[in-house]
């Protein structure tokens, strides 16, 4: 509201009016549901995760390895050429300590969301995932991390088969 206008003409609808349904309210609930075909590339990627493996696709045109994999290279506009098994580790490219849930409510404990450049993929080929076993203030860009997998019987072919990435333990 403009600083020069303290009150507009007309009848104000207050939050109390809405709560008490003094006006006609239309509330509509829908149940939109989808089952997206994963396709060849994402299908193989998810099947790999179930086996505890991360797979990428190699483009013979630009010689990049794409992860998550795609059957086409968006730069060369050609079909990608071959599957490449990548390591289940990488390094942090960027991260954010998040205090909000996906419904915008506040979290007590933050999650650390990061883009992780997977070892064996091309530079800046990153996947989005969570970081764990590390305090927010200890996270650094370029930090080496490794995947922590769900147990084999709990894996279902989903991105959440990796629980999170944690700082790499040197062998």
């Amino acid at each position, binding site marked *: 509201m403009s600083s020069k206008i303290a009150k507009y003409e007309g009848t104000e609808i207050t939050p109390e009016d809405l709560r008490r349904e003094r006006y006609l309210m239309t509330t509509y609930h829908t149940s939109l549901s*989808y089952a997206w075909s994963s396709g060849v*590339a994402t299908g193989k990627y998810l099947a790999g995760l179930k086996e505890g493996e991360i797979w990428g696709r190699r483009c013979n045109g630009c010689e990049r390895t794409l992860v998550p994999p*795609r059957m086409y290279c968006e730069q060369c506009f050609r079909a990608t050429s071959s599957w490449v098994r990548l390591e289940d580790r990488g390094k942090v490219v960027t991260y954010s300590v998040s205090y909000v849930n996906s419904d915008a409510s506040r979290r007590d404990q933050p999650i650390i969301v990061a883009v992780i450049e997977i070892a064996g993929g091309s530079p800046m080929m990153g996947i989005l995932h969570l970081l764990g076993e590390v305090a927010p203030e200890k996270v650094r860009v370029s930090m080496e991390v490794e995947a922590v997998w769900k147990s084999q019987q709990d894996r279902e072919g989903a991105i959440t088969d990796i629980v999170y990435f944690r700082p790499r333990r040197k062998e």
Partner: protein
Amino acid sequence: MEKAGRSTIVLLKTGRVEIIGVGYEGFRPVVSDLSTRELMFQAASKAYDDASVNPRRDVGSFICCTEDLWEGWSITDEMVPDQIGAAGRPLCTIPADAVTGLGTAVMHILSGLAEVVVLEAHSKAADVLDKNAVEVMAQEPSLLRPLGATSDTLAGLEMDAFLRTSGFSLKDVNRAVVRGKASALRNPRASYGGKFSEADVESSEILSSPLRVADKAEFAEAGIVLVLASEAWAKKNKRDSVGIDGVAWNSSLPWIEGGEMSVSGYAQRSYSDAVRRAGFKGDLEDFDILELDDTYSYKLLQHLLSLAGTKAAARRILSGKRTALNPSGGSLGVGNLVEASALHRLLECALQLRGEAGSIQVKGAKKALVQSWRGIPTGTGGVAILSR
């Protein structure tokens, strides 16, 4: 009928726009092996090969006709560019049917924005588990949705009024279904061809009277891409092409509010504008091929009547002596491709005019007309006139 202004009309001031390439993939009830993106990539790759263009170099603008609720993905723009060669290049998605998309492409070319434009649309209808939920979201939320009527109910209401006011009978509707299914048997792109009798249609289960299951096109999946270029570009680069003589689109009030029952104003006005633009002096019967929207069987007759002007002219076209009506089998035979339905009709006409329609080829076809409709509960559609 409400008084409406001029349709959005594209003025072809500096020569025609040409279709220089077509590509498609899918055309099955369910394309389960490919993701939406992979389906689009396959269709685009074929179209670019057909047009002999490199999308990374030759294409100045990409247009994708898509609707977020059918994708299950908000702001779909983000998932479109990579797989059609548009990464880092000008692309827009428009939530409209492909005749409107074609008009947009024509404007991009004739305004000098681009010499070569790509037009894409696809259907992954089987990914949408509750299609009814999506369709009901198109209804006005305070006055229509609370009543619990589905799209099929609204279609049933319109069909009932159409049969009472147009002079067409249920027998005519039955024949429309039979001919669509029969034509589709010869079309390799059709998923729902079959030898149906009028009795089969008659005995089909009622959805919402008088609309029956057989009156409604079943869903199918496909990816379709057209490559368009200015006439000058096509000539200079020696591309074989099909010309776009005129394109127009229009909206009426939905029939529920507007009361248009026997004819559809959007189709009439789009037709008269497209014809004027094309400088076409003949009648509807002078087209060699008509691909008219038949998402519901009675809509084919309503659209035909709207364009033909009189019942007698519409009946002459239905007799099939001069003009081929929906030789592809239409949506009733090929399947409802949601936002790709209009692009499918354009594809069929482009193949026909190139003489590449195979077993459904209309001999000597030189002039074709496509008419589109955006579906219940809209009163929106367009017309495109193509020639060779």
